[in-house]
Every structure is written in structure tokens, then in C-alpha cells.
């Protein structure tokens, strides 16, 4: 856990790659009309991609907030 805060740049790169990658995955079986998508045999893969994309966005927000809080606390302790 400490490691991801020690190198935030690397963590952000991983999160960004996850966001972009999972968004691309979410298009699998979901690129037609709603009716076509319903009959797609690989729609489940797109759904997993979509959920993972949303979780990645959430993880990025949570990580950013935690990073801000940690930085503020460290500054307060140093002052």
C-alpha cells in the first residue's frame, strides 16, 4: 500500500492505461444498436470492460483524494 503512494506517477500511469484499456474493451459486443448488442455472443466481455472502466475511474478519484490528504497531513506535521 505504501509503495503506490511512494511512486504516484507510476500509479497514475497504471490507472490511465487501465481506464483507456478497459474503455476499449467495453466496446466489444457493444458497438451496434441496443437490439444488436442484446444478441451479441461476446457482450459479457464488453460488460466486464465497462464495469472495470468505471472501477478504474473510481480508483483514480479515490487515489487522488488519498494522495492530497497524505500530502496535506505531511505538510502539517512538518510545519
Amino acid at each position: 500500500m505504501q509503495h503506490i503512494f511512494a511512486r504516484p506517477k507510476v500509479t497514475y500511469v497504471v490507472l490511465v492505461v487501465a481506464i483507456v484499456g478497459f474503455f476499449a474493451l467495453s466496446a466489444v459486443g457493444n458497438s451496434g444498436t441496443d437490439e444488436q448488442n442484446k444478441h451479441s455472443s461476446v457482450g459479457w466481455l464488453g460488460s466486464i470492460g465497462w464495469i472495470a472502466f468505471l472501477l478504474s475511474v473510481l480508483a483514480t478519484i479515490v487515489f487522488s483524494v488519498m494522495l492530497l490528504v497524505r500530502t496535506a497531513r505531511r505538510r502539517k506535521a512538518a510545519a
Partner: protein
Amino acid sequence: MTALARRSSRLVWGWCVAYTSVTPQPSRERRRDEIRSHLWESERAGLAGHRVAFAALRGALHDLGWVIGRALPALGRSFATPAPYVALAPLFPLQAWLVSALTVGATAHLAEGIGGIGGGATLTLAAVVWMFQRRRR
């Protein structure tokens, strides 16, 4: 760092911290030290708070000019590093998500296609810049 006693000085200091936060570190620190020193001296000299605040207000445009002069070249130089491309990459899927949420049921909007391709393309660009950087070292 000596604490500032007056509210007007603290306000001016807050403004200084805000506008210098987007500039590169060496010029940011130089500017902050300079302003901090001016504020401390004005407190020691017993200058009225409203005069300090008014002087800061008159210099606000100059401050913004200073920021543009320092931040823009640094921003331009940053495009030779992967950082801005990595920062821009997630914006493509996010805008596609927003557009698709606003156009539910309609045929796919052009922005959704750009969102799908743009993120990957920007990340590829970041990887290329990173490889060039590594080769140069």
C-alpha cells in the same frame, strides 16, 4: 518561515501561493521568497493593511503576466515528456462516456468514436516520447 500577523498580508500571500503554483519550481520559490520578504517588511514598517491589499490588487495583472511568461514556455517544454500525453489520455474515454450518456438511444456520435480511439493513440504517443527520452539519455 516567519508567520504573517495581519489578515491582509495573509490574503496577499494566499494569492501569491495560488498564482505561483502553476510555474516551475525555481522561479516559484524565488517569487514566493521575494513576496514573503516584502510582506514581512511591510508589517515591520507598520504599513496599513489596506495599502498592502491595494498594492497587491494593482499588481494582479502584472502577476498574471509573470505567470504566463513562466508557465507557457514550461508547458511547451513539457510536451517533450510523456506526462501531458498520459494526463490527456483518460479524457478521451471520459468525454465519450459523457457524450454517450447524453445521447442514449441515438446512433453513435462522432465524439464516441474519437473517445474510443483517442485514448489509445495518446498513450501510444506517450510511449513513443518516453522511448525517445530514454534513447537520448
